[in-house]
Structure formats: C-alpha cells, structure tokens
C-alpha cells in the first residue's frame, strides 16, 4: 500500500488516483443528471391538468376541439389537430370554455303562475306537463300536441322524441329548427339522388380546383371551412373561387370572381350556366349516358328536352333580370365545367327560398351534367347551420313528413317497416304528415295545437314573421326545455325546464358530410338541470309510453338507432360508442365495426352500398341514375314596389351564432360583433341621407323593426342586409314567411321593405 506521500514511479498510478479520477467523472455525471432532473421539475406546464376531446356545439361543421381541464373547469380550448378540421376552429369555438359558467343559466324548473314563472320541483313541473299533454290528447286528439326540436339536440334525443310522438302519442307533429335551415337541401338531395345527405365530403375541398360558393358566406358562418378553402388556394394559387351573393361579403372579398346578382334570381343564373354548358358542349356525355336521367318534374325526358328548356335561359336574356353581364355568366359556367374539380358550397341563400328545392336540384344537376361529382375535389356539398341538423334531425327523421333513416310518413310501406322495427302495432303511425314549422305555429294560433314541447331552440326569435308566431305561442301551452332562463322563447314558456348544455351531457352529433362524432360528458350540469334525453324519458313514462321508450341512456338509445339504420341506405351500424370514443368521428355508410367509413358516397370501392364492380352507382334511385330536373324560374312572391322599395336579406356574423342565446353572453364575442345594424349600399345611403348610426324603422308586410344603419357599400343597390342574432333588433319580426311548396322551408332571404328615418342617431 502506498501512503499519500509515497513517491510513485514516473508512470505508475496509485489506487487513490484512480479513485479520484473516477470520483471526478462520477461527480460530473451526477451534476449532469442532477441538472437534467431540475430542468424536468421546472419544465413549463400549461394550466390544464388533463385534456379531453370534444366537438364544438355551434355550426354544422362540427370542428373537433380539445378541452384542457383543471379542477372541473375548462381552462383551455384548442382546435383538435387530429379531427377533420385539422386544428382550425373559429372565435366562437375558441370561447367554448366560457359556456359552463355563463350567466342566466336555468337552474330549477319553473311554472307560470299568475303570469310569472316561479320555481317548482321537477315532480311538479313534469306532472303538470304530462297532465296538460294527456288532457289535450284525450280531448282533442294526438294531433293537438307537438314537439318542436332542434339540430342542437343530440341524435339520441331527437330519435327518442320522434319515437315517443310518432309511435307513442300517435302524432307526426314533430318538427324543428332544421325545417328553417336545411329542409330544401334535404329534399333536393332526395329528389336528385334518392337519398338525403351529400355525396361528397369536406375532404373534397383539399382537391378542388374551382369553388362555386353560392348563397353562403363561409368566411363568417363556417370559418374553419373557409380557412381550408384558403389553404387550398394558397398552396394551389390557380384554384378559382367564385362567390354568388347579392352582398359583397367577407367571403366575396377573398374570391376571384364575385357575382352580385339581384336577390332571388339565382335560378336564372344557374339555368343560364346550364345553357352555356350545353351550348358550348362542356357536358360529360359519357357520364350522362351512364348515370343520369332527365326529368321535367313529372316525366322522364331526354337531352333534347333539356336543350329546348334552356332556350329561355340564354345569358343575354337573363342578364338584365339577374343584374349580371352575360359575359360573367358565360365565364362562370366555363370555370365551373372545365375545372379539374369543382366543389359547390351553399347554405341559406339557396335553402331559405320559395324555390329552395329547385335551386338545390339545379346545383346538383350542374355537377351531374358536367361529371363534376363522385371523384376527389368534385362534388355538390351543402353546408349546414346547426351542429346536429344532419345526423340528429334529417337522419333520425325528426321532421313532420319523415320517419327515421330516409323513410317518409306518406309511404305506407315505410310506416309498416318502422312500426315493425319499433315493435308497435300496425297502423300506430298516423298516415298524415305532421305540421311543418310555419304551419305548426299557425296551428297554435288557431288552437289546433294546444300543447307543445320546445327543446333546445329559440323559435320566438328564429321564426320568420316572428311577431305573428310570438302571439301564437302565447295561445299554446308551451313547455320550453332550455339552458338559459331568459331566451326569447323562455318568455312564452308555461313550463321552463332547465336543460344540460353541451359537455354536461353525452350524445352524438352528425355533421355536414355524414360524419358522426361523439360529445362525451365532461362536466356535471349546474343546479338541477337535466339532459333533454332525461326529460323525454321522464315524459314518456308519465304519458304511459315507458314500454316503448326502453332505451334510456345515450348509449342504449344509440345502439337501438344504430341497429335500426342497418335496414336502410343510411347504414351506420358499425359506428359504435366505443369507436366514437377512440376516433375523431366516422362517416357513414359504415355497415360494420371494421368498416373505416365512407368519404365519397355512390363511389365503388369507397361506398359499401355500391354494387360490386360498379365504379359509380346512384343506388338511391330505382334505375340507379341520378335525376337532372328541368326547373323553371319563378319570381319570389316578395317583389319591391313603391311602398316597399328595398329587399331585406338576412344572415349571420362571424362572432355570433344563430340567435346568440349562448354567444351573446360571452363578452368577447359581444364586443367583437357589436349590435346588429342595417347594412346599406353607399348609393342608397347617400340618396336617403343615411349615415352610420342613423335610426331607422324598417317595415314589411309582416312587421316593423327599428334599428341603426351602417353604410358599408357591401349590399347590392336596393338591398339591405341585417343579421338576426341581436335580441335588440328582432329582425325576423319583419321577415316574410313565404315557404317552399315542397320543403316548407321559409324564404328568409327575400322580404320587400320600406325604410323610414326615425330622427335619432
């Protein structure tokens, strides 16, 4: 052993030295790991302690969101990168975290006593509701009661309400807000393809070379879709964006071509485009021969009939009536037909029209004739307004003329099938279609309908000619299930039931492109609020239909509905809760649990319902051919005259959703949108000496509203635009309630009005 002082040989090593070196290296390594450990401890963390996937509850895009949670509070909301929206949401979605804590939530049931709503127990409220419904049914028959629902309810809820009313109570008076929003699109698809719901998908946006946006303002109303369009444009700058709108919207600002046509003349434009396509031989002859049938609405006709029909629609002839040059019409037709892929997008400007169905037919027809369909980037794709109007109402048959999964009340075979599936005796379902939205409220007016359950929607603000129907609501025993106690409709409630909102309950949303997504329960509802499903089950039991409504939880209802769908072309049997929990939504048809879902319908290899070996098959029609209808233009009943020289058209703004029951309570959104105002063309404004802030009275044949003006130059001359979200400007009071003869969807977009300055600023 060498001591410390022992001399060493020149190159010798003492153990001690080795030890020292090793210790040094050890300390160095220790320092490294220690430092790393400290860095791991102090690494930055977000406020959220856990994250859950969810779906935005506002518009029909159904953006996936991720909710950051901490102690039962939503601290952060992020767009879900894994969902179809690729992480993009809008300002409304970004504010979703505010929903659970908004002021004005209905916390306890209330019953109207001596004109005032007073708190009650659930037992008192529900037994009163059941008694009034039973009394009415006994005395005046099942058609004296009604359900008025919404595309904001979960599919399970509308399915249950539909079953309870149609197979239990025995009335087809089941309608709702989607009648005001999507009915024309739904009927349009059914007439053309034999099935409701779009053939294409949002994914087609990523492959399109031309976007034909007509009667829609996606920049404000479907922002994540517009962002997707712009991303396509930025990465493929030759992509053409065409916008048809009487108003220079924010969407039009960003389009290559804006066609500011006269309100209500779209069918002239579409037929003229068809004219150009036929005249310049831009059609796809092979596609037509193989997959298309022509019809004049009653009989099958041939291609020559189309040619002669179109003689009345030369661009030059229609030009003065539409207010567009023949040249731009021709150019649009060429861009539409000759692009490598054209996607048409439309919403309320087309649907909310007395010719809504015909307009929908004709847009579909343009795609069929040019073969711009059933391939990536080429499709007609109607955009939707509510989060669950497609899956929840159109698919479940939650409208007065429908039965679930594409069946209709008027068809006896369909009624028998549904009766069998629901296990009720033959003849239970009434053969008479129920009352559509406008006629339902007219029936309240004259006492034919005496008790109505309104769920998750706000007809007192959203109906056209709202003044008239607000009075009608006063005459009816109105049960309102609503999350907020001071919505416009809650004012007319005889019983107000506090409802759970969004992630306070569980259920499936079905959106735009046949996509079903699950909204999982994340929070408990406040106060005594209950889910709409719980309310419906309770009502069913009290009305002695408990043995009909045996599925009583979201998942069991879904399983019943999913198995029901197997018998139809809406087959989504393979979309289970389990899959929806794991996936960011699935698109039907999806017949079994191993099926990945269908992006493009009617396309062999993608859609499982297409016969094997077929490349394209429109299996919804008996002859497997989609129908191109020859639809004549008819003028809107609303025309300007000396008394009503302006056309009022309505819409939405980016920051508010629908009647702003929710978004109007979020300060950031309220601040961003400001109050609703009447937008004027600068020439009209100058002629009438109207400036920003000028107080106006706007009068129509239906009602009068007062509000302030804003001069933007955006609307076409002679047109006034206003948004309908603001309760201080209940615009729909003045809006016409003319409706499409087939879809029964009202024409919100065209009302002749007069304008009078009231003096104030």
């Amino acid at each position: 052993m060498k001591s410390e002082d022992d001399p060493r040989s020149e190159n010798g090593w003492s153990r001690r030295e080795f030890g020292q070196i090793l210790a040094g290296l050890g300390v160095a390594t220790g320092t490294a790991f220690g430092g790393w450990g400290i860095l791991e401890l102090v690494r930055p963390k977000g406020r959220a302690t856990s994250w859950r996937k969810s779906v935005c509850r506002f518009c029909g895009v159904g953006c996936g969101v991720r909710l950051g949670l901490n102690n039962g509070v939503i601290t952060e909301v992020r767009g879900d990168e894994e969902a179809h929206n690729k992480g993009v949401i809008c300002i409304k979605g970004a504010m979703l975290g505010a929903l659970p804590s908004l002021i004005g939530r209905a916390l306890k049931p209330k019953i109207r006593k001596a004109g005032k709503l007073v708190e009650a127990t659930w037992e008192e409220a529900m037994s009163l509701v059941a008694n009034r419904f039973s009394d009415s049914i006994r005395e005046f028959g099942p058609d004296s009661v009604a359900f008025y629902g919404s595309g904001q309810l979960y599919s399970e809820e509308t399915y249950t309400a539909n079953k309870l009313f149609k197979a239990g109570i025995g009335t087809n008076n089941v309608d709702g807000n989607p009648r005001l929003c999507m009915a024309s699109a739904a009927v349009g698809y059914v007439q053309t393809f034999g099935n409701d719901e779009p053939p294409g998908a949002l994914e087609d946006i990523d492959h399109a070379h031309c976007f034909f946006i007509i009667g829609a303002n996606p920049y404000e109303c479907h922002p994540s879709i517009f962002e997707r369009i712009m991303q396509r444009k930025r990465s493929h700058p030759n992509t053409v964006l065409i916008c048809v709108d009487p108003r220079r919207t924010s969407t039009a600002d960003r389009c290559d071509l804006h066609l500011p046509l006269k309100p209500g003349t779209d069918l002239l434009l579409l037929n003229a485009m068809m004219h150009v396509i036929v005249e310049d031989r831009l059609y796809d002859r092979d596609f037509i021969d193989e997959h298309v049938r022509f019809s004049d609405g009653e009989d099958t006709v041939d291609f020559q009939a189309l040619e002669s029909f179109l003689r009345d629609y030369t661009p030059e002839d229609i030009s003065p009536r539409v207010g567009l040059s023949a040249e731009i019409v021709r150019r649009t037709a060429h861009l539409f037909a000759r692009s490598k892929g054209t996607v048409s997008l439309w919403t309320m400007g087309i649907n909310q029209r007395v010719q809504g169905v015909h307009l929908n037919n004709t847009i579909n027809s343009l795609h069929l004739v040019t073969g711009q369909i059933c391939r990536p980037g080429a499709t007609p794709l109607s955009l939707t307004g509510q989060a669950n109007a497609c899956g929840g109402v159109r698919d479940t048959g939650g409208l007065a003329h429908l039965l679930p999964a594409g069946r209709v009340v008027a068809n006896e075979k369909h009624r028998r099938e549904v009766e069998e599936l629901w296990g009720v005796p033959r003849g239970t379902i009434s053969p008479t279609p129920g009352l559509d939205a406008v006629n339902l409220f007219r029936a309240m007016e004259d006492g034919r309908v005496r008790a109505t359950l309104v769920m998750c929607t706000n007809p007192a603000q959203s109906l056209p000619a709202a003044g008239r129907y607000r009075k009608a609501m006063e005459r009816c025993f109105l049960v309102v299930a609503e999350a907020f106690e001071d919505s416009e409709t809650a004012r007319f409630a005889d019983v107000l039931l506090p409802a759970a909102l969004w992630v306070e309950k569980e259920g499936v949303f079905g959106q735009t492109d046949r996509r079903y997504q699950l909204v999982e329960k994340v929070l408990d509802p406040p106060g005594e609020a209950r889910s709409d499903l719980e309310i419906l089950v309770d009502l069913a039991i009290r009305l002695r239909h408990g043995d009909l409504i045996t599925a009583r939880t979201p998942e069991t209802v879904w399983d019943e509905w999913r198995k029901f769908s197997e018998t139809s072309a809406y087959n989504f049997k393979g979309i289970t809760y389990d899959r929806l929990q794991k996936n960011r939504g699935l698109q039907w048809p999806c017949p079994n649990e191993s099926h990945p879902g269908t992006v493009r319908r009617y396309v062999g290899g993608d859609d499982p319902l297409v016969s094997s070996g077929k490349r394209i098959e429109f299996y919804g029609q008996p002859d497997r051919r989609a129908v191109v209808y020859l639809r004549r233009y008819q003028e809107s009943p609303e025309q300007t005259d000396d008394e009503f020289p302006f056309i009022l058209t309505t819409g939405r703004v980016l920051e508010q959703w629908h009647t702003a029951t929710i978004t109007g309570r979020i300060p950031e959104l309220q601040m961003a949108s400001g109050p609703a105002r009447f937008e004027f063309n600068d020439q009209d404004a100058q002629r009438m000496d109207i400036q920003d802030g000028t107080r106006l009275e706007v009068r129509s044949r239906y009602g009068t509203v007062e509000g302030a003006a804003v001069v933007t130059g955006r609307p076409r001359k002679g047109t006034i635009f206003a948004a309908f979200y603001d309760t201080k400007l209940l615009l729909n009071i003045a809006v016409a309630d003319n409706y499409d003869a087939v879809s029964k969807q009202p024409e919100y977009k065209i009302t002749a009005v007069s304008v009078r300055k009231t003096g104030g600023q």
Partner: protein
Amino acid sequence: MNWLLDLPTLVKVLGVTSCVFGIALCYRLIRVGRDSLSRDKMVNLRIASISALTFNKLLAFMAFIVVAGMSVSIANYHVFSGVKEVRSCNSCHVMRPMVNDMTDPSSETLAARHFSNKWISSQQCYTCHTDYGLAGTLKAKMDGYRHLARYTTGTYTEPIASPSVYNTDNCMQCHAGTRKFEMVSSHIALRKGLSDGSLSCLNCHGSAHPTRAQRTPGHPDYNDLMKQGD
C-alpha cells in the same frame, strides 16, 4: 480571405486549437516527475529564468483555468450560436418532420407559410420558439438542455408533444400593432385571452406543424416527413 471571415469556421479552428493546446499542457503536467519540481532547477524563458516548480504552477494555471475556460467559452459560443440555426434543430431526427414540412413549398402549415413567404428569413425555429427578453432566452436554453438530455438518452416517445402551451406573445411580437391585425375586430375583443395565453392563435389560423398523428411511425405521411434533408 473569405475563410477568415467565416465566423463559424474561425470559432471551430480556435476551439480545436485551444483544446489541443490544453491537452498538450495537461500531458506535460502528467509527464513532469516529482524530481523535476525542485526549486533549484531553473527554466529559462529567454526574458527571465524561473524555477521549474514555478513554471509548472504556471502551466497548471494555464491548463486548468485559462485554456479550459477558453475552450468552454468557445464551445458554448458554438452551442448558443449553433442552436439558433434550423440545421441544429434538424440534427435530432424527431424534429425532421417540422423542418421538412416547413421547407415544403406546398405545405400549408403555419410554419411553412412563414418560411415560404420569407416572413422569417433565418433561424425560423429559434425565432418562434424563444420567448422574448432575457427570461425567454434562459427558458429556451433550459428547454433545449432538457430536450437534449431526453433525446440523447432515448427517454422520449414518438410523436413528441409539448407539455406546455405555446406562448402567443411570440406571435404578438410581430403581429400586434400591424394594420392587418388591428383591423380584425375579433383580435381586439380577444386581446386579454391572447395576452394571457388562454387563447391560441393556432385555433383560427391552423396548425403550425404536422399533426401528432402524421408524426407517428406507421402513418402514411411519416416516411415522407422523416426523409433526410440536406
């Protein structure tokens, strides 16, 4: 003359020289026998003669303090200037998808838009991912070291995900105050949420990078995103 002006090369040469010099000094210290350290043995340094002991003490000071300090400083300069470069981030393969996507002219992610439009002309990763101010720089360094430790020890899983939320202040540094930004009423209304980080710019303006799914091995895009750049 050009090579002289190339700072990274200069630093490299200086650093290596300094290390080699340090090694030589240490080697000499090891070789020095105890005998040669007597006070009597003199070392002639031309301008002065000093004892061998004193000379070796000087050598030790040079090796352990002066040259070591110089080498560490140069290497750290190398670290701190090098890591600002995209190339440096790209040297960890998990970062390749971000860089490949960013430099892909047809990509529409936020990073790619900033890159292809030359909104940020150099040091793109560093510019967006370093918070402003001294604290930000410190935080970036700490994060960087943590990432380095994780990466080299293999204690991570693909796809990598940030445990924190992106600091929107970094977006605001450039965008706030511009006409395009202020024109959007939503931005004004959301000012609080944007400044306290409870709202993300990405919500409305899209993903910054390829999604986690795309960066998961087995995804159809994975191999493309992982391809070795230059």
